[in-house]
């Protein structure tokens, strides 16, 4: 890509190059902001997420909250007054102001004394220590609410990830997704490579028609096949199992795989294959020794596609694998989390990152083949 930009700009001013670079950088920034936000959120705890946006993660945050004072059971008698004492501050936070009513939650400064009903008095020091006194014994009941406005220093935690992977069942779902994804990527590639070679280099009647049929299958929506296919699986005893979902994904992935690989293989130099034939190589030898190694970029680009598609799939997994906890895939587990913990963003953000980690690794490991394989498949053609 870089070459082309420089070639195109060779005769023009350097300013244009800069404009292009800056525009590209701005677009990249724009597109990655949501992901960055999600990443930052996944390291913040629940209270921080509620009180301030992720872009303020690096600064101190001001939070309004209330703490319950001790109850009658905590009171001690000092002379003729009854005292309940304790601390209202979370660790490392600073007290800014406090109050005793939801109508005026910041009425008092640290050190002030609030006069309450029945001669009770409350004071909160700047360290957060409170002291509630009363001339008579405190009655039974709930502790009163002390409203506090606190300033907390920035802090990041990996606790969300630990919780998601262990307690929320995402770790288990991660392994299930692996179990589904890897065979569902490998099997179609194996089959499609043979088919693509046959369709590209072997002569037999009806070859063109077969290619046209496969291209036609590309536009059939897979939703059409869900119920009939599951019915078939049930009848032949596959039911909802890993084998069933591997076969289903293989079937749904094959048209694109064959199409992509065949177009790439057709573009390989005819001379090599012809001379191999002249030298007496069998079709299988040509396929294994010549075509397969040369087609690696196309294989890799299809592998990325299929891997990402299967990894992110929810529909096919729910239909062919079911919803049981012990076989649930990651997308299913995430949906369950959305339902039960829809308000807990820290949990959702962390699980989202667990789920995109592997596709990112796969993508970056194989991305140099992606563009090459794609271009080869589409441009050279037929």
């Amino acid at each position, binding site marked *: 890509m870089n070459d082309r930009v420089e070639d195109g700009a060779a005769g023009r001013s350097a300013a244009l190059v800069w404009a292009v670079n800056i525009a590209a950088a701005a677009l990249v920034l724009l597109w990655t902001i949501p992901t960055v936000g999600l990443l930052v959120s996944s390291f913040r705890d629940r209270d921080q997420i509620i009180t301030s946006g992720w872009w303020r993660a690096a600064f101190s945050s001001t939070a*309004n909250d209330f703490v319950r004072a001790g109850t009658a059971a905590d009171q001690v008698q000092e002379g003729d007054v009854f005292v309940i004492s304790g601390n209202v501050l979370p660790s490392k936070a600073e007290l800014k102001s406090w109050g005793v009513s*939801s109508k005026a939650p910041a009425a008092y400064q640290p050190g002030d004394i609030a006069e309450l009903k029945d001669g009770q008095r409350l004071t909160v020091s700047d360290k957060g220590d409170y002291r509630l006194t009363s001339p008579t014994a405190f009655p039974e009941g709930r502790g009163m609410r002390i409203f506090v406005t606190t300033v907390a220093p920035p802090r990041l935690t990996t606790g969300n990830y630990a919780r998601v992977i262990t307690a929320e069942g995402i770790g288990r779902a991660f*392994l299930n997704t692996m179990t589904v994804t890897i065979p569902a990527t490998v099997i179609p590639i194996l089959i499609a490579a043979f088919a693509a070679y046959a369709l590209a280099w072997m002569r037999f009647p009806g070859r063109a028609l077969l290619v046209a049929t496969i291209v036609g299958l590309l536009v059939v929506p897979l939703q059409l096949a869900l119920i009939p296919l*599951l019915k078939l699986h049930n009848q032949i005893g596959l039911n909802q199992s890993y084998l069933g979902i591997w076969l289903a994904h293989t079937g749904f992935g094959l048209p694109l795989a064959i199409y992509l690989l065949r177009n790439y293989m057709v573009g390989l130099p005819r001379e090599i294959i012809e001379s191999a034939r002249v030298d007496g190589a069998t079709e299988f030898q040509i396929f294994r020794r010549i075509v397969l190694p040369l087609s690696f970029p196309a294989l890799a680009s299809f592998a990325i596609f299929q891997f990402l598609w299967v990894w992110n799939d929810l529909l096919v997994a729910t239909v062919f694998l079911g919803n049981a906890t012990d076989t649930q895939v990651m997308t299913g587990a995430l949906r369950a989390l959305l339902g*039960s913990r*829809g308000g807990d963003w820290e949990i959702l953000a962390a699980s989202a990152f667990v789920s995109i980690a592997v596709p990112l690794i796969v993508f970056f490991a194989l991305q140099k083949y992606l563009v090459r394989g794609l271009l080869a498949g589409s441009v050279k053609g037929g």
Partner: protein
Amino acid sequence: MTKHLLLSAAVLALATSAAFAHQMKFVPGEDSRFHWDSFDSFKASHALDGQKLVIDGPWGGVDKELFESVLATFEAATGASVEYNGGDGFEQRIMVNVEAGSPPDIAVVPQPGLAADLAKRGKLTPLGEATQKWLAENYAAGQSWVDLGTYAGPDGKKALYGLFYKVDLKSLVWYSPENFEDAGYEVPQTMEELKALTEKIVADGGTPWCIGLGSGPATGWPATDWVEDMMLRDNTPADYDAWTTNALKFTDPKVLTAIDDFGWFAKNDKFVAGGAGAVGSTDFRDSPKGLFVSPPQCYMHRQASFIPSFFPEGTKIGEDADFFYFPAYAGKDLGKPVLGAGTVFVMTHETAAAKAFFEFLQTPIAHEVWMARTGFLTPLKTVNPEVYGDATLKKMGDILLNASTFRFDGSDLMPGAVGAGTFWTGMVDYVGGKESATVAAEIQKSWDAIK
């Protein structure tokens, strides 16, 4: 090398996928409030060792855990093993599985409309005369529960297909008693007082309501509950019944009055936390949290009895949060109508274990083990009300008993395309700024289209 690692991970995943047994919360015979005698007699008459029962339903998260403790009691009594595969997306999952011939043994259906649809397709097994008789005799307002569970089969013949278990009460307003106390507000006894209180809170500089309609693909359903509650408060129960069958059209002035009555609360920027524009986009699970922050974002939240599951952790019902009955107009003489909903159990695959489970649901103990925890109300008269996990549930039970009219969630009775489709989206459009007449006309049009 990586490939080997990945493969071994896959093998590990396969190897560890053993089923886990459910945990019982209450030990048989220990707590005398429970009807353990019904457990013992059920246990004596049912032996299903080694049999498997598969149940699908809409409950995930906390509810799933609670239901699994009920299943544990069934497992302990019979020796059968029960697999509960429920969670979000139940409506689509059950349709696919039933059509493809791999149904669960029992399905827990949240909308009677969906159960009726399954019955019509011939996918359900009737529960029989004995169950029908038992239901009419042992449930409060038994005949109405029989009617709600009776659907037409594939041959058009009506029979009892569904047994209701777990009821939700919808006509509730949640609030923080301490915030009311701080501001000097009283719990309103009539709709007139509720509206006056709403205006008073605004005059005092506060925001009275938290309303959120967001719920993923089901966004809009909380508004349909509001409209149903207003229908029962503006019109007679007969009008309400006619409305759920479309004998009374959506465009009828009576329905428009109810929609606009909801709009009085939800479409006023000063009445709703975040302004009217936030109503459609706030998630219903997030919206009650405004009650508990400092300073309070709102003072009241109208939502069904299940909502405490989404309150912040550690919230004590009855102390940090409480509820009152969503009152009726004193001036309209319509009594005390109550809106509710429930989940109906249907048999999608007839097995000995499934039949036994329906008999289990008819024992008091099946209700009591969930009652004793949270979020469960039952119309079964033979249970011991002392078992209820907290005073709140008991108070809800009282509302249920004192109701002069009980009506089932109307949108659940309507055909799916309306009650779980255009009614939801129409309400989102309505709070987004459209007129009630326009929205009602669109909903009516979608209903006409499926007649």
